[in-house]
């Protein structure tokens, strides 16, 4: 499935929610279900430091696709991490590099990607794109 398809799915899922509480309950559930990153990756090396919450990100390259795994110490951050992984993991480096991730705004979570929020998400996206760029250069 393309990034746009998955984004559209997520937007439709969020459309069923009437209020912020239902939206956040869903994100919290996602956070609880996100497969934890292997303990070996939950180290300083993979840490994306936010002032408030922390994110660990690991990326691998398989058959022309980038596979991301991540975790966070805050559950809401983790839920949003899960959405980003659902959209970006398993995609080609080019697709990852070119997406503006428009769905975040459409499901009303834009504020979580604000630089003032310092929850590590913005840095995580930057790091995801850097990985994509590195894989693209390495395996071209």
């Amino acid at each position: 499935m393309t990034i746009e398809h998955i984004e559209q799915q997520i937007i439709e899922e969020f459309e069923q929610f009437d209020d912020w509480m239902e939206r956040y309950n869903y994100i919290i559930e996602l956070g609880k279900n996100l497969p934890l990153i292997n303990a070996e990756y939950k180290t300083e090396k993979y840490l994306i430091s936010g002032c408030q919450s922390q994110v660990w990100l690991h990326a691998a390259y398989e058959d022309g696709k980038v596979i991301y795994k991540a975790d966070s110490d805050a559950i809401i951050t983790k839920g949003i991490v899960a959405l980003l992984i659902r959209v970006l993991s398993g995609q080609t480096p080019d697709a990852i590099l070119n997406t503006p991730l428009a769905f975040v705004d459409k499901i009303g979570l834009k504020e979580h990607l604000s630089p003032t929020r310092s929850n590590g998400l913005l840095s995580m996206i930057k790091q995801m794109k850097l990985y994509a760029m590195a894989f693209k250069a390495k395996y071209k």
Partner: protein
Amino acid sequence: MTSKAPDILAFREDFPILKRSVYNKPLVYFDNAATTQKPQVVIDRIVKYYAEENANIHRGVHYLSQHSTMAFENVREQVRLFLNANHAHEIIFTRGTTESINLIASSFASKHLLAGDEILITQMEHHSNIVPWQLACEAKKATLKYIPFNEPGELELSLLDKLLTPRVKLLALTHLSNALGTINPVKEIIAKAHQKGIPVLIDGAQAVAHIKVDVQELDCDFYCFSGHKIYGPMGIGVLYGKEKWLNDLPPYQGGGEMIKTVSLEKGTTYNDLPFKFEAGTPNVSDVLGLETALNYIQNIGLEHIAAWENKLLTYASTKLQGINGLQVIGRAKHKSSVLSFIVEGIHPYDIGTLLDKMGIAVRTGHHCAQPVMDRYGISGTVRASFSFYNTKEEIDVFCEALKKAIEMLK
């Protein structure tokens, strides 16, 4: 000065921002330790300055310049009275507490700090009262040491004598901890340091809005505070320094106003106090806004403000006790209206995010006091900090919202 207790909540009406809502819910503003809201009189004062009085001060011969200069210098006298300093020229206007501390750290270190010397701080300082001293110590190959604090959040003063070694050149500590709410017994600490001839700087950023400060009674050598934490504008702060110290220390920044004469051949001679430390065009409008804010709170009476805030703290502390897994961080006997807490198994960021959605502004994280968090082995807390304009009803709303958030996150 004690007067009959005023109807404290009537003053809430003076704060236009408290009437607004966020996410269609009435705003509950519990982030007062970060910054306080501004009464209409302060806002009006700043507008009036730019509408009717704006001119650069001190050098102008024209009417507006002289008017502004007089208004500006009158505030120095008002701040002197507010702190009960000896002289108006002991009051230096800065951008805030951070700049006040940086000024002293820089000027003091350049003249008095030598390799092998020590600066003593405490384990509960805000980063603003740590990093300037780290920079100074690094530059001079001196050592930064600290007074630790115990589990409830009180300084281990039994260690003070030992820590005040002959190598200590200055002691810098907070009057009131922003992360814990602890009110430190600064007067006794200052006296002990003075017995050994060590000057003391007090970070009063959190204290001035809650405690009546008398710098002569405290006998501190330096006292710093920010306008925006005492219902005044952002970007204006105060450094009080004893005359003998301010005369002794070299200038911090160079520029206009702080000089007597400038010659490319013969060098520069510096202006007298307070101008020696006020390079460049000062922030006149915010100085005037600060004056209005100081008058405003003195009119209410700091003793009445503190009394109401203590009631709010007691009320909130009691209510929070009933919440499962909640632990208050900072249980000092003498504390101010700062309520820092963690909830077992839940990240403070998550709680803060959900409270925000319910219209409640609290702060989450390390509160720029990472060593405090390290002391407890936590990454951060949720902090609710109250002002005299807050109500018990708001605390009820906050407690219900907190329970709802915990329910969602468990």
